[in-house]
């Protein structure tokens, strides 16, 4: 029916089509992997931090278009930075007021953050209205790049990819090469000892959580390039994000990347052959089945008990 080369072209094209989706998913998963993998905290409001970033991007787009049209082509960079900062700030507050009180109670954290997500969604609704809004993409992000006849790569996909790679790289360097990263990993592995050697574990928790949220904010900025933003936009990604993190083995960042890639690709490819919803069902079911066979995730490192 479909020849191998055709299948490969479909795979590649669907792959590139799904590039932006993959980037959003990966950024969300990275943020969550930092929070869940390193801290063991379930943040059901993670999707809402994406929404923060998306709304900020929309605001900047709206403001520059209305008041400073000359700045319009550049607003996106500012949006990325601002999204990170605002989401980081809210994340910091959330950890301070909510998460830190529920330390060691993961299921309760799950429920409490779900409550937070409801409250955040309503806040968005009250401020921005229930209708979806769109950021106007700057011109240079539109259009596509055609390396060959068959393959069509959207430019915003490439930009997202670059942004994602940059951010991922930064996170790696932060976690594995910086002093702060060392403190984070130490606190995760042995909280008591870390406290005993003078690491302010509370502060480490706070900044770790805030960082995860900040990354979600950037994912929100990226999200505006693929869809319109509404109060419940975040909830589109939350289940997928959790599955990506769990599938990849929560404590392995490389696993998270590989997992995000496989899940996004499976879904894109499946969408070509099936309807959108069936593709989603297939992907989710496959992930769950594999998880049942390998509960520690696909790419986890064997830890000594």
């Amino acid at each position, binding site marked *: 029916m479909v020849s191998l080369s055709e299948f490969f072209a479909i795979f590649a094209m669907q792959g590139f089509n799904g590039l932006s989706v993959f980037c959003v998913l990966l950024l969300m998963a990275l943020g969550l992997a930092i929070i869940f993998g390193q801290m063991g905290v379930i943040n059901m409001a993670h999707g809402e931090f994406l929404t923060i970033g998306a709304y900020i991007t929309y605001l900047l787009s709206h403001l520059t278009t209305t008041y400073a049209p000359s700045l319009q082509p550049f607003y996106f960079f500012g949006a990325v930075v601002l999204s990170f900062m605002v989401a980081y700030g809210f994340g910091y507050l959330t950890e301070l007021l909510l998460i830190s009180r529920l330390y060691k109670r*993961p*299921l309760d954290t799950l429920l409490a953050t779900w409550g*937070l997500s409801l409250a955040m969604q309503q806040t968005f609704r009250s401020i921005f209205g229930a209708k979806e809004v769109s950021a106007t993409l700057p011109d240079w992000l539109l259009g596509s790049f055609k390396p060959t006849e068959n393959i069509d790569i959207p430019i915003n996909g490439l930009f997202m990819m670059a942004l994602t790679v940059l951010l991922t790289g930064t996170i790696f360097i932060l976690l594995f090469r910086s002093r702060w990263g060392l403190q984070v990993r130490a606190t995760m592995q042995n909280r008591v000892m870390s406290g005993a050697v003078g690491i302010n574990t509370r502060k480490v928790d706070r900044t770790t959580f805030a960082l995860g949220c900040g990354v979600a904010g950037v994912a929100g900025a990226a999200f505006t390039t693929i869809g319109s933003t509404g109060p419940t936009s975040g909830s589109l990604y939350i*289940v997928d994000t959790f599955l990506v993190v769990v599938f990849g083995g929560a404590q392995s960042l490389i696993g998270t990347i590989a997992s995000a890639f496989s899940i996004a690709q499976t879904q894109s490819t499946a969408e070509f052959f099936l309807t959108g919803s069936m593709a989603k069902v297939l992907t989710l079911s496959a992930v*769950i089945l594999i998880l049942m066979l390998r509960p520690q995730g696909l790419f986890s490192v064997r830890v000594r008990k």
Partner: protein
Amino acid sequence: MNAAYEKLLGGRSGLIGLLILGVLLLVIFPLGLDIFRLNLVGKYLSYAFVAVGLVLCWGYGGILSLGQGVFFGVGGYCMAMFLKLEASDPISTKIQSTPGIPDFMDWNQITSLPAMWQPFHSFSFTVLAVLAVPTLLALVIGMAMFKRRVGDVYFSIVTQAIAAILSILIIGQQGLTGGVNGITDLKTLMGWDIRTDSAKVILYFVNAGLLFACILFGRYILTSKLGRLLMAMRDKEERVRFSGYDVANFKVFVFCVAAMFSAIGGAMFTLQVGFMSPSFVGIVPSIEMVIYAAVGGRMSLLGAVYGTLLVNFGKTYFSETFPELWLFLMGGLFIAVVMYFPNGLAGVVEKQGKKLMAKFSRKKVVPAEPVKPKVATKAEPADIHLDGANLEASK
């Protein structure tokens, strides 16, 4: 005989609790509310089945299922299919291109009844399906998860994913399930019109009766050795394993019971409200049902009913008068209950009750025979400081 009744009814305090609830549900509401409101309470009570199930599997078993909507929905859809087939007899549907099949199938250009629907012509099959299908589903999910020792958090996430999958499936398969609108326009149950006022009253009492049956069964479980095992497992799962118990089997059991309760609730919902849709199956309704149990008291079977009623009354009231406020309130409720009232209303009542009792007597009685196991109607005193989370197995 006496001992069995004692155990089931939970001694004096348990009996009083049951009686109070019984009077409220079976006497006060029917006498004091008009049919419309009574039907509304009946609807809420159908949600209460899920909450009661959650007390068993979450409060006592430590299994936080965020997908109980799946079982509620499956039970509801089974009943809906039966009722829809009855309402789609060839005479009523003679204006359709294909008479004798449900209207939404006709709209989707389906020309013959799908195989999956065929057995639901029979009421006894339907009842069997309501009880068995969700239980079997829970059995499969439970075995796959608990035998493999999947951690608590992962389990919760997977149940969420399953709820998402099922709701997407149902919405996507319009021709088979009625899609996003669900199965509507249900008329009669074996000839008996379920839309009349008298039918609604009868169904209300049937619902309440079944709810009490589930509560009593729950009590039976909790006061047995199995109930003590559940609490021991939540506290020290490893030790239970090393006392010779296959822990997974017990978790699966209580998960299946919760599933079955939810399914009964779903079926009663369909009968009382006259439709079933995927809006009860997905992630959002499933988590909402968890809050019913949390507010009422996750360790209290009776509390779960009160919690369901309270949250739903609040929802109806606030969404009418202050719609913007409602979601804030619910979000706040989640946070407040988790942080300040881990044992919900029942916990508060128990604490105040104890303070009163302490004022009256300081005597400590040493029993002459083994202490009767405390009944799980109110939070166990030692459990006030437990927060339902399985601390050790949380990795």
